[in-house]
């Protein structure tokens, strides 16, 4: 007399449990032939178990999370660089990376993107390569040799035919691009490009040579290198050094749903705060896991939430969350003591003494945990 999958699904899904537990339960239940009576008992036990594993009210969740992330920090390696996924790309890892994440740096020291491709590109090596050339910034140095003719006051570029073909660039196209960027006429003959400054001056010639090297001829400026790698699934994935999420997402063939960058701020700017929060959690988890440290994801969530609660990614520290605390004493006790006190005097700030540090300073019980519980007694009648 076992119940049908549908009835199981219906009864389980209405339970006051977190979604994940419900799906776990119903998945497991579907595998068994459970009777109504048994199901009731399962539900009863599940509810009891949930009640047991709930976080108790008044728990100082913040401190616990902070300690849970800070404590493994001492065990992390300092080794800044290592190869993440691809041997060719260096990524900051370990403690420096964790610090970078909680600092919410605008420019991480090693920005990197993982670009997934849409189906028709993902399994075709040539198409993937083509996309890679579209993304990687190409400079003149990788296309040919540049020489300066001082007598003629000209810069001569001997283009490498192979490199051009590989990157699918036409000589005319290239000439046009340089003309556009530098604003000077470029004459091409065969694979040779010649150009010179408007006024024949030695200084301008040198400057032109310098400028020429910085012109992005193809691809996205800021992406220094693209590496193609075949994943175990047979799919080709692009790994880049440098990160330009917005521009990369605009390229046809890039899978916008899976492509990601390790620059949290960029994700926040392009896709909003919820994505930024998710990225924070993802990056922190990755960093910790890579070091072989296990930290419960709830701790990382709490950190990500406090960093993103105001609708922008804020850093942990003086310039972010700690600097915006309501309490003068808490701010003064953290960093830059004197200026906080002087400023609060000017503004006539009032410290409401609600937080932990403030109450420790004035010497009274803190309003957290057991300090937040009061006894109420009924009058004996």
């Amino acid at each position, binding site marked *: 007399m076992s119940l049908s999958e549908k009835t199981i699904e219906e009864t389980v899904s209405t339970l006051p449990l977190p979604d994940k537990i419900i799906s776990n339960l119903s998945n497991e239940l579907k595998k068994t032939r459970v009777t109504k009576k048994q199901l009731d008992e399962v539900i009863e036990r599940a509810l009891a178990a949930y009640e047991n594993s709930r*976080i108790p009210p008044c728990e100082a969740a913040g401190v616990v999370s902070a300690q849970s992330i800070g404590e493994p920090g001492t065990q992390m390696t300092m080794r800044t660089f290592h190869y993440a996924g691809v041997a060719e790309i260096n990524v900051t890892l370990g403690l420096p990376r964790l610090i970078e994440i909680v600092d919410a740096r605008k420019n991480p020291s090693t920005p990197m993107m993982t670009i997934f491709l849409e189906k028709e590109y993902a399994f075709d090596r040539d198409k993937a390569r083509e996309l890679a050339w579209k993304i990687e910034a190409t400079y003149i140095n990788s296309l040919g040799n540049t020489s300066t003719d001082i007598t003629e006051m000209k810069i001569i570029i001997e283009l490498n035919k192979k490199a051009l073909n590989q990157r699918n660039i036409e000589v005319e196209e290239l000439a046009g691009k340089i003309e556009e960027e530098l604003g000077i006429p470029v004459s091409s003959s065969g694979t040779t490009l010649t150009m010179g400054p408007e006024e024949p001056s030695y200084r301008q010639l040198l400057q032109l040579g310098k400028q020429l090297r910085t012109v992005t001829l193809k691809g996205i400026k800021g992406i220094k290198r693209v590496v193609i790698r075949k994943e175990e699934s047979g799919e080709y994935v692009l790994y880049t050094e440098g990160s330009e999420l917005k521009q990369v997402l605009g390229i046809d063939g890039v899978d916008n749903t899976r492509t990601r960058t390790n620059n949290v701020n960029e994700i926040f700017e392009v896709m909003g705060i919820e994505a930024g929060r998710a990225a924070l959690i993802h990056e922190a988890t990755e960093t910790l896991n890579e070091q072989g440290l296990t930290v419960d994801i709830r701790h990382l969530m709490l950190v990500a939430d406090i960093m993103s609660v105001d609708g922008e990614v804020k850093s942990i520290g003086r310039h972010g969350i700690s600097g915006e605390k309501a309490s003068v004493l808490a701010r003064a006790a953290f960093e830059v003591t004197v200026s906080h006190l002087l400023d609060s005097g000017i503004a006539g700030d009032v410290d409401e003494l609600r937080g932990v540090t403030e109450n420790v300073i004035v010497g*009274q019980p803190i309003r957290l945990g057991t300090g937040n519980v009061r006894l109420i007694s009924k009058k004996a009648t």
Partner: protein
Amino acid sequence: MVVATPKRIKQIKFGLISPKEYRKMSVTRVITADTYDDDGFPIDMGLMDTKLGVIDPGLRCKTCGGRAGECPGHFGHIELVAPVIHVGFAKLLRKILRAICRECGALLLDPKKKEEYIEQIRILRKMGQSAEDVVSEVFKEARKSGTCQYCGEAQQDIKFEKPSAYIEVDEVDGIKYEHKLMPTDIRTRLEKMSDVDAEVIGMDPNNARPEWMILTVLPVPPVTMRPSITLESGQRSEDDLTHKLVDIIRINQRFQENREAGAPQLIIEDLWELLQYHVTTFIDNAVSGVPPARHRSGRPLKTLSQRLKGKEGRFRGSLSGKRVNFSARTVISPDPNLRIFEVGVPEAIAKELTITMNVTPRNIEEAREYTRRGPENHPGANYVIRADGRRVKVTEINGEELAELVEIGWKVERQLKDGDIVLFNRQPSLHRMSIMAHEIKVLPHKTFRLNPAVCPPYNADFDGDEMNMHVPQNEEARAEAKILMHVKNNILSPRFGGPIIGGIHDHISGLFLLTNSKDKINKNDALELLAKMEIRELPEPVGKENGAPYWTSKQIFSQILPGGLDIEFKAEICEKCDQCKGVDCEHDAYVVIKDGVLEQGTIDEKAVGAFKGIIIDKLTKEFTPDIACKFIDDATRLSIRGIMRKGFSFGIDDEYIPDEAQSQINEVLESASDKVEKLIAAYKAGELEQLPGRTIDETLEMEIMKELSKARDSTGEIAGRHLGMENSAVIMARSGARGSMLNLTQMAACVGQQAVRGERIQRGYAGRTLPHFDKGDLGASAHGFVKSSYKNGLSPTEYFFHAIGGREGLVDTAVRTSQSGYLQRRLVNAMQDLEVQYDGTVRDTRNMIIQFKYGEDGIDPMNSDFSKPEAAKRIIDSVMGKVKE
């Protein structure tokens, strides 16, 4: 004794003090720079006037009548002859001067705009946010105006010279006329500012008028906060603040004399500047652009700002963290016979630290007994407090007498005894398990003793570590310690929801040796192994040998497991075969426990270790912490006996490998060297294939590194083949007790590549690392590859490279600790106010919601197992009445 009702400070308001208020709160005007007269008595109206409070014992404060210690001290004041600028506000003053009219003092903005800004600021303040951005906009807007909207006065540019000089620049026909603004001029302008204008620039005019930023009266801090110390020679040494105040008073006097005598303007200005300097350094002695005031010895003075700032400053050093009584500190040493929640306390400490007993009808006899025993007979009493609050010291002599006098309402400060709850702590206190509550066991000798199984949470070892102990002083604190901080309630770490307390080192080797053997244990040995446990009966013997019954080691271990425990898991020694044979594992690495009986498998780190111990995890979560505690206690004792049964040692002989293995190793290293040479040859010939995205040099380095690490690994394998499971180091490495196979490889076979920043060693002389090598030598040994093993010894060059690599490791650790410490401080500071509410939300002190449901599911990380699919499966299985498919 009347117990005062606890008062709660509701709020603290900050502001500036007006000169009027300074004078009002001052108890005396200070006019003489002298401190004491010839008799050593404080001079009236001097800096040490007894009206300002007293520090000398015996004297009484003229203001409140209190003695030293009772009188909190009182402020005095110095009337400054001319106003000076408060350095802390110098920058703000500049902004204000540029934003207000030089004639009428009005803020140079339209009245309508002012209203708008006030509105904005009020809203921001109300929401508890900073109005900084609005205020800086106000300053920017107001500065643009060239003439005053109100009086039509043309505005002049104001130049600011650090630290506190303001110069007005008037431009007439292209010629610039500069004139200095004296503090008096500035003050007149600020006085003209209206309250409304003050509010627009973010000030609170009721508590902080702009002109109060310019000092006309200087408060003199009470003597109690600048006590002088009497040196051995009888000479008095004054506090830094007193020195500074002396300077100020002297200059102030000279200034006044000169002015009254009608000295030239130039001299007056000089003196004014000098006064400004002294007042500036009195407030902050580290202002950039001002030479710090120095003590006679050349040490910079510590003035007001320096007292507040930094780690040892008032805020972090004296207010957020305080020194405490009822604490003890000494070296720790291990004692596996203690229970994990016990701490062995030296008798000397137990005699010194006390717990206050309130004498009631129920404990009066007990209290008298303690008093009778006096301070020298261990569980005695050190003091009694009579009903009127007088403390009486208990001595050998008056003990008996006092004991009879003890009555209800008295208090007896009794010494610590077995079973008392104390807090035990080891720094750095990185997580909450760094302070746990232990029960006392008074022991002889001078160290704190603890069970080695509690070392992981404290991160302690016994190489000279010291730990602290604190004795909670009231019932509330003791209850909280016992319920929340007790070791048994902290077996699970909230970081990852697993056990953090468990066997280490020899506990693991011991249990491994015991359970991995096929020994037949006779009755004597069985009883010996289990002697320390509360086991009163042996199980049925497996069989008989020579007429005597014998037991297996697994049976012995099963004795310490509670009934009803069912688990199956792979042990640490599991070789991770492609196809797990499960129950039929030939390494005995598949552990099966049914109903508290170890049926098969080896007990090692995976079972009982800290961080990993599956049995401990199960016992804490599915049974009770008490049972888990008991298990750890028993396991530590059993393991010690288990290891003693076999004997366990490690010496240089254990690193010996046969000659044939050594020659194999040499061969491997030789061929690796050849391969490296080949790579170098290919590189030099330009035939090396470049890795994508790498330069040719990087490619070569990477290839060489790869080749050499492969060689090291294979030498390790060769060595490993010759060092079997009978080798102590292998046992330790495989069972997870200590060390790794890599350590063993380094000892017995080959140390391997020494690296700096993840690369081969490149630094040293031009073109080579050491003069022993040719210039441009790219070979293995020239760049830090150590072919020797630790046992065979390193060659001089190898030794040097090893030192380089070793030094990097040391520097790394030193840098890391400071960095991660700061990271943790920032994290804690940012998140300390967050609390889970009764409705499941996480909020900060402003009641702002950070998370609507803690961790999105409201589950405690300590019980995070519940969110895993296995939890659901377990519930269903137990209902369906089967343990396993």
